[in-house]
């Protein structure tokens, strides 16, 4: 994990140097006064040799200093701290939606394979994977915020009510993936001999499914769930834009529009590091759920 994190830090550090031409001129804008350009160059440390810039970037990060916003002149960490909970709330909301849909649907279609309900679940999974969130979101807004005013069109002011439509928007794709995963995984386990043995020894079918087979079927599902949590963070960039949700993703796009590069770099860094952390935790979790992996 440490080499990967260092790699990511280097990648994010080099972003500002990829700006075509002189980054300071580009950031200040065409026709900016030379002293403004010089100020920007100095504040970004662009007047220093590259290796010094890199060392100071890493040491500042180690101290928790992510830089200052060009727009507000405030610490970018402060703004990120204010926005982070909103993105997390959205990610957890979507995960909840996905689990609530995928578990019943996946289990039922694994038990009743090739029945009409299985076909419905498979069709749902296909639609869920192909439907872009930036289309599904507006459709939900038209149906449930404009035609029927059950939920707010955008924002986060109305608490849980505001969370419903963005969570469904982001949770749909995950629900589709999980449904497929649970179906395949559980169907696989149901065909195993230990399930037949349990039933032959008098265990009820429901108990054989939920206590024996489902437990084993959950192993790959947990991995997918944890891996997908990372993708929820990037999915949030689009969903937050659709619903004007005041999270990290929206902050990133706003900072790109205003060319607030320290804020852009810091937002990308925080999203990427969270993504790596989640994947790392999912690896640990995997070992706990399936002790055979730890033995290997």
């Amino acid at each position, binding site marked *: 994990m440490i*080499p*990967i994190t260092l*790699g*990511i830090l280097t*990648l*994010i550090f080099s*972003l*500002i140097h*990829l*700006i*075509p031409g002189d980054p300071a001129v580009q950031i200040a804008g065409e026709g900016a006064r030379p002293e403004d350009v010089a100020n920007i160059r100095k504040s970004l440390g662009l007047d220093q040799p590259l290796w010094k810039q890199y060392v100071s970037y890493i040491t500042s990060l180690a101290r928790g200093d992510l830089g200052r916003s060009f727009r507000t002149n405030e610490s970018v960490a402060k703004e990120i701290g204010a926005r982070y909970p909103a993105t997390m709330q959205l990610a957890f909301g979507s995960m909840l939606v996905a689990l609530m849909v995928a578990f019943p649907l996946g289990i039922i279609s694994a038990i009743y394979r090739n029945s009409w309900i299985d076909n419905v679940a498979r069709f749902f999974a*296909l639609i869920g*994977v*192909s*439907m*872009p969130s*930036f*289309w599904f979101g*507006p*459709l939900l*807004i*038209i149906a449930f915020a*404009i035609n029927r005013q059950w939920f707010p*069109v955008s924002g986060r002011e109305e608490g849980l009510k505001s969370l419903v439509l963005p969570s469904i928007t982001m949770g749909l794709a995950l629900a589709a993936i999980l449904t497929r995963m649970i179906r395949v995984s559980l169907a696989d386990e149901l065909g195993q001999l230990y399930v037949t043995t349990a039933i032959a020894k008098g265990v009820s079918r429901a108990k054989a499914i939920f206590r024996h087979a489902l437990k084993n079927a959950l192993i790959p599902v947990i991995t997918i769930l944890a891996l997908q949590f*990372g*993708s929820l*963070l*990037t999915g949030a*960039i*689009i969903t937050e*834009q*659709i619903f004007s949700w005041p999270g990290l993703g929206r902050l*990133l*796009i706003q900072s*790109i*529009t205003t060319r607030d*590069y320290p804020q*852009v770099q810091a937002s*990308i860094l925080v*999203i*990427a590091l969270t*993504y*790596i952390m989640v*994947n790392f935790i999912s690896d640990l979790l995997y070992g706990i759920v399936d002790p055979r992996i730890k033995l290997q």
Partner: protein
Amino acid sequence: MKRLLRNFAFTAGLLLTLVLVFVALAAPLLAPHDPNVQDTSRRLEAPSKAHPLGLDDLGRDVLSRIFFGARVSLRVGFSVVLLASIIGVTLGSIAGYFGGFADLIVMRICDILLSFPGILLAIALVAVLGPSLNNVILALVVTAWVGYARLVRGQVLKVREMEYVTAAKAMGARSPRVIILHVLPNIINPVIVMATLGLGGVILAEAALSFLGLGVQPPTPSWGSMLTAGRRYLGLANHLAIFPGAAIMLAVMGLNFLGDGLIDALDPKYRKLMR
């Protein structure tokens, strides 16, 4: 081919993809109006006989813009998949065939890029390079080649131990000749499947970047940016959001069907490789 056409997913996907390609190629002939001609007096007009999908916020014909938007989507899709597969196949086969230091470097770069969410990297690159069609292609290539490199490396590792490769080497063939004439033809099928499956993803990513305002710039019609405009007029002119979104979904679904059908028809074991 007969076996392929009996596969429902493949046939449906092929039909949808053919329609998409036809619309993109024949857009100037099919489009009922010029996609960029504005009539501000009739902005946001609902669908009618003259304008089957209505008019947008600047009074431009939505149907014509969707037809021309298909060109942008396919241009980005094909360019990214072609460039990414060329880079990925080249680096993947070098890493797999020669092993050692080359393998170490290529695989570590892959690890770093894979640990970074793809769309985030694309957003970051477009943010610093500036939004334009070429920069979108570049950003998506940077994130997409990794998948091909890993796939090809794994395949080359297997194929390079085959007897026909040893035979070619024993007969004095140089490494580039062995790779191009003996190794690549035997690993190309999964690459084709991955490219077909990847096309839908690239079109979706382009639409997402355009939706965020980081893609193709106005007035060029792109499905993603049409949706952004549509979002502003939800409730007033829902057709602006509904139709471009439907176009994206049909195109992506068609390509996914085609890729899925191709996997089942060619060799179901590829499904494992694509993960």
